[in-house]
């Protein structure tokens, strides 16, 4: 995983959604919807942040894939997008 990318996304999530990746109850692999840390309003804010911060466009497939649910999987999706535009 790209740690700089992951750090930036984690920083946004923690500040915006008011929780901490403490490595125990919430880890990079935690499904944040199942854990109750993210809701549908938060999802809108997350998608807007990712598209603006990294100048990417998330497709329907990305949004429907159920992959944007944890720090690790969000980072992976963004990495894939960025690798395609490089």
């Amino acid at each position, binding site marked *: 995983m790209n740690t700089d990318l992951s750090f930036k996304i984690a920083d946004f999530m923690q500040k915006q959604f008011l929780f901490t990746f403490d490595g125990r109850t919430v880890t990079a692999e935690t499904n944040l919807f199942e854990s109750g840390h993210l*809701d*549908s*309003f938060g999802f*809108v*804010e997350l998608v807007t942040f990712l598209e603006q911060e990294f100048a990417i466009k998330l497709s329907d497939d990305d949004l429907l894939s159920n992959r944007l649910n944890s720090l690790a999987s969000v980072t992976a999706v963004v990495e894939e997008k960025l690798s395609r535009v490089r």
Partner: protein
Amino acid sequence: MSAEPISHCTRCVLPSTFPGIAFDSSGLCSFCQAAEQEAPVATARQQLRTRMEEAIESSRGQGEYDCIVAFSGGKDSTYTLQQLVRTYHLRCLAVTVDNGFVAEQARENCYTVTAALGVDFLFFRPAPDFMAQMYRNSVVAGGVQSPASIKRASALCNSCISLINNLMVKFALQHEAPLIAGGYIGGQVPKDMAVLDLNLIQQEWIRAPQRDRYTQLFGPAAGQFFFIRQSLLQKQPSGRVTVINPMLTVALRESEILASIQALGWQPARDTGRHSSNCRLNDLGIAIHYRQHGFHPYVMEVAEQVRYGLMDRAEALAKVQEIPDLAGLSPQMERIGIGLADF
């Protein structure tokens, strides 16, 4: 709650107790500092309005109604309904969800306004026992809503909003309406919700864990309000509805909104507190939220109005510093089955 005295942003009134806030040496908060980097508000709202109007045009004439309007009878949803009917000439079905605490004047407003605008109107009341249980557990149980939801509204309001939003999707599917409109204003929801293309399949995986929590906490009847059956989802072949919030695309002061809707016969309710024009439970939500979190649940939206020149700072400060007295809210507490020891 901190024993430190609460200070407020020198521009927008957000308090030092607001989650994640920081101030510079002049007392300007981090939210105002971020807003200075954004496009001018008039430009931003014009762009949102253009996007909303494109969505309206592409949705017109497809179903039984063009638009389901979440219509509380309050000032913002009344203005929204008026705009959709008179400016955009949409065929609307106005839907009011009666949470059991709708003020009598607000109820009258619903009938008066929909008659004046000539739109169909549905008054829907979920079972009072279910609503009381939902409200009670929203306060008493932990983890009902996401942590960030405390920035937007009280626990009581957040659960009610979730229920109403989901019901509007159900009504839109039942009536084959491609649009759903709400009367949210800036600071209540993300700005992108001025126009939101809602993919219902995506919503299913986002909301499934939330619905499971609701069913556990609010009882099996929650399924009726927070689940959408596959057979209903299939009524919209595209799998999408578009949510619009016209108030996010305009910059209006409260006095302008009131002047506009009073011409429809709308009258202010006198028993709903300072921050609601339709709900008699709202003050209890505010009082509980302040006691639990140390800031007023309306401060985000009030601050945004001040930041964009739609409300005077002194008026805003007065609004967010006036906390309803719990002693006067015993009837509401009794109806939803909570006491002071519960929060």
